[in-house]
């Protein structure tokens, strides 16, 4: 009970209600006994985390299991293997187009992301800081564009892509993905640009800087964390995109990883599981590694777009 008064005097924690309220070191957890905490907190948490991560464990395990162990669940315990093999990965890398698909996915994701970020930086800056006539309306429309799902656009887009002669070319995806990415990243960046003090821009304007110079030399460098968030989140969305890639690409070597795995690896072979899971794992790893380095940015991108 002794730490109650100190907590209530801790003005900083009370006032900074908007920032994540710093580690309230013990908080009120002393009110709960240890057994009670185990039952109400650790046990349910452990169950949920195990369920959330099990498919990845299973994916990884399957991808290194030898074929005979995959299907014979009686002689070998299915939950572990003592003789891991890289046969499936070998098959993936040297006997299929997998490196091609990985490269396609990467190429499309990077190009679409860069294009979208470029367009979004300009648009967000214009909406927040140029405040031209109707800026708020345009901001609202862009938000609405965020709510238009790809599943109602892919049919007309397929005809558009065909008319423009982009069918079966990575360019079709590079040009259509920004419709998903621009609304999202514009809203995210608008939030970041709003936090940059006006005074900085005013000083630059007085010194004779043009709008373009202000954007490139002042606003963009100050919004780097926001740009990183937008970039990696857009990259993830591109990597995850499926229906456009499925509809607009046809030849095997042009496909992206998610589409290729679903279409090319699913044959009648009963032993396909190993290489299928190896393909799924190899397709997820780049994103998981990226995520591991930028966890904070991911979370701020996710919550930033929702908060507005």
């Amino acid at each position, binding site marked *: 009970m002794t730490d109650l008064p100190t*907590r209530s005097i801790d003005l900083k*924690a*009370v006032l900074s209600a908007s920032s*994540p*309220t710093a580690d*309230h*070191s013990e*908080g009120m*957890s002393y009110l709960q006994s240890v057994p009670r905490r185990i039952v109400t907190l650790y046990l*349910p*948490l452990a169950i*949920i985390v195990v369920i*959330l991560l099990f498919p990845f464990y299973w*994916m990884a395990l399957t991808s290194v299991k030898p074929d005979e162990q*995959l299907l014979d669940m009686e002689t070998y315990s299915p*939950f572990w293997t003592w003789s891991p093999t890289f046969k499936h990965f070998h098959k993936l890398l040297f006997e299929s187009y997998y490196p091609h698909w990985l490269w396609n996915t990467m190429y499309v994701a990077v190009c679409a992301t860069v294009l*979208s970020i470029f*367009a979004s930086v*300009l*648009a967000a800056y*214009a909406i927040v800081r*140029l*405040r031209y*006539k109707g*800026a*708020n309306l345009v901001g609202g429309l862009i938000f609405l564009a965020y*709510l238009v*799902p*790809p*599943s*109602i656009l*892919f*049919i*007309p887009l*397929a*005809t*558009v892509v065909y008319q423009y002669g982009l069918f079966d070319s990575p360019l079709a995806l590079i*040009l259509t993905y*920004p*419709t998903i990415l621009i*609304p999202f990243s514009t809203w995210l960046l608008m939030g970041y640009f709003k936090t940059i003090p006006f005074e900085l821009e*005013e000083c630059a*304007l007085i010194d004779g800087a043009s*709008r373009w110079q202000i954007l490139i030399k002042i606003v963009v460098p100050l919004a780097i964390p926001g740009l990183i968030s937008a970039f990696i989140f857009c990259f993830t969305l591109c990597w995850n995109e*499926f*229906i456009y890639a499925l*509809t607009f690409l046809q030849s095997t070597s042009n496909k992206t*990883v998610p*589409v290729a*795995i679903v279409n090319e690896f699913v044959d009648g072979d009963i032993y396909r599981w190993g290489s299928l899971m190896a393909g799924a*794992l190899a397709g*997820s790893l780049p*994103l*998981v590694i990226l*995520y*591991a380095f930028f*966890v904070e940015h*991911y979370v701020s991108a*996710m919550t930033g777009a*929702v908060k507005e």
Partner: protein
Amino acid sequence: MADVAIPRAKPQMSEDSAWIQLKHNRNWLGFWFMVPAMAFLIFFLAYPLGLGIWLSFTDTRIGRVGHFVATENYEWLWDDSIFWLSVFNTLLYTFVASALKFAIGLYLALLLNENMPFKAMLRAMVLIPFIVPTVLSALAFWWIFDSQFSIISWSLKHLGLINQNINFLGDTTWARICVIFANIWRGVPFVAITLLAGLQTVSPSLYEAATLDGATRWQNFRYITYPLLTPIIAVVMTFSVLFTFTDFQLIWAMTRGGPVNATHLMATLSYQRAIIAGQLGEGAAISSAMIPFLLAAIMISWFGLQRRKWQQGESND
């Protein structure tokens, strides 16, 4: 948006002249800054959206220009039992998955908000299902729900609970349960982490005060956490409902709409009719039929949000 713009506008008008100096060409500059984003959104979003609605009134097929047939596609769909089955499936899928995602996500957010060792690492791990491409994790589920070599069937058999393998994706009821489960699995991290961000803005002193007044844990949640979270809940659930309703890839990777169309959603059905069968007009009609539902979902959450704002303004006094 409007209430953000007003206080911003004040200093710029009263204080300095540099802003006013540039005002005469601000609209012009603004136009050029908007060109790249608008070009993408108009050519690849607004135009196709209109074109999709137009296509739904034509009998276009792949490789053949269509003619205007008025509402023939819709009349055809009206009598199509598979279409109605897909509408039913979509609504079932959306309602069940969204409700459970919300319940489990909120619960998980509350758990993660507690103090414990390895908090940061746990939060990072929870988000992994959201990071991995949906199709790839759906394939893992496909393997987990395999009819012969499912690890779940194996475990249950060895626990003595069942005698033979469950035909997870071959039986209509089980298939529905499995795809809904996979959708929940994929959506919970998003709901949990965004709600957690909302939870962290709630000052702990509120709970302390309430606890001193003798509030139980449930009362703490009901009268402090829940009212303060409602705005963010409304936004998160709008997104969740939208993306669940228009889901495609999870179903396509796991069941492709089978068995006997039990898991066909409107999105998968429109893909099958439009791209595989080549009936672009009919497919466009199915996807256009999704628009009213989406509008309803957006409206409900939008007006829900407005009401919350007003309520909050009153109670914050």
